[in-house]
């Protein structure tokens, strides 16, 4: 009798462990939430980077205004989205010789999804394509169009309501951006804020 109880106990314990495991794997695909409630419809997030720059060794290109429009929804319990607009303004380099004549996000929309890496929620942007045309008669890239392509994963801070992209987050998410066949560094901190029916609600990914 005692053996039977022990067996049932063990089975329940195993079930509990399995449930816990499933719960963990479920959290591997976080959903968009507002005030803790899962998003049932679509929402539009607008924002601009606090700071953003990309670096090929020896040359950093920064943009004062790196805006974005992201339409989000949950599909099958996972947060998804589309970056529909990424206007970039006032971009410059750290070189006196090279100026950014034009910079444009191409092949929009870029698809996004939420994922968990290192137990943290991430937003992964796929199909990134940005064309940068440099000018400057002393610039070795003068009259050259440099295209940045790839995917980028940024960690979401649910408290600060920001998404941060840097070499660590790209590495953690197994993503990379390339320009001139080189892996480039991209740094950016983007606030996340809803601008439709969930305006002024706390946004999170979990």
């Amino acid at each position, binding site marked *: 009798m005692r053996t039977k109880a022990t067996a049932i106990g063990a089975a329940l314990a195993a079930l509990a462990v399995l449930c816990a495991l499933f719960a963990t794997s479920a959290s591997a695909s976080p959903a968009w939430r507002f005030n803790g409630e899962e998003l049932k419809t679509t929402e539009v997030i607008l924002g601009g980077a606090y700071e953003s720059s990309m670096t*090929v*060794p*020896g*040359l950093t290109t920064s943009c004062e205004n790196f805006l974005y429009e992201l339409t989000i929804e949950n599909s099958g319990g996972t947060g998804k989205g589309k970056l529909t607009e990424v206007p970039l303004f006032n971009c410059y*380099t*750290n*070189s*006196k*010789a*090279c100026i950014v004549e034009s910079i444009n996000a191409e092949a929009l929309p870029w698809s996004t999804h939420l994922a968990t890496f290192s137990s943290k929620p991430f937003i992964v942007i796929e199909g990134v394509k940005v064309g940068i045309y440099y000018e*400057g*008669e*002393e*610039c*070795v*890239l*003068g*009259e*050259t169009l440099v295209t940045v392509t790839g995917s980028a994963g940024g960690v979401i801070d649910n408290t600060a309501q920001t998404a941060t992209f840097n070499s660590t987050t790209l590495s953690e998410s197994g993503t990379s951006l390339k320009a*001139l*066949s*080189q892996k480039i560094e991209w740094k950016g901190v983007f606030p996340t804020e809803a601008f439709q029916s969930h305006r002024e609600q706390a946004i999170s990914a979990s």
Partner: protein
Amino acid sequence: MHKHRTRVVCTALLAVSLTALGLAGSAQAKLVGNYTKFAQCPFTNAEVKKCIYSTTESGEVVLGSKTVPIEKPVVLQGGYGKAVEGFAPFFAATNGITLAKAPQNVPGGLLGVVPESKQNWLIKKLIKFFFENSLTGLNSTLELAKPATEIKISENNLAIESGTALKLPVKIHLENPFLGSNCYVGSSTSPITWNLTTGATSPPAPNTSIKGAAGELEFLEEGRILETKGAKLVDNAWSAPAVTGCGGIIAFLVNPIVSSQLGTTTAGHNTAILKNTIFVGSAVAVKKNNEENP
């Protein structure tokens, strides 16, 4: 009176000399720092937009059945202009040495291309003579087969690892006293044309696709110079014409022997793999650096 006139003339001559020296001094402006590599770039030519200094540090050239490793650095230098239909025109180095001659040792030496066995008595005697006099070493030197203007560069293809990045018309000089001074594979009228890529090749059989690499970039001098390390340029779809001029007056005997030893050199049997460090600078920046350092 005469003494005074002499003194005036001497003073005038001295003044002229000093002026000339001063002018010479200002003309001898020089490049400093990272710009020194571009000393032979024709940057004073307004059509030249970029200066290039590329060193092939290693790699190999396979011609038929012979493989020649690149052990001595080969320098390609000069300038290039604005791209037209994707390819920029090349401008020769100011000292005329656009592609520096760097003799590479051919493994197997002379006997590798002219084996002693199976030859007629004359060839055997000659080979014996050269062998006894330690003249059996064989060098292979890459030379430009056409004017530098025939070189074409595609910066875009170089960067995106696709398509021809460097079109190079060359000939290979086989050097050994027995072969004479005019033993070549390729010529100005029938050059070997390398369509080098940093991407993947599509050669005819029996060769299979090989892949190059754009290398690792670093901007120097605040974006005025671009250094690329580990740029791997490859082509294994080129064909080579028959050897010519080997053996001097007995070329009619030696050419067929060398050709037979090289084996089939039609497309699909040859390979060029060049591993380079490439410096590219803005011609305006190079010119400015030159003017700033009298």
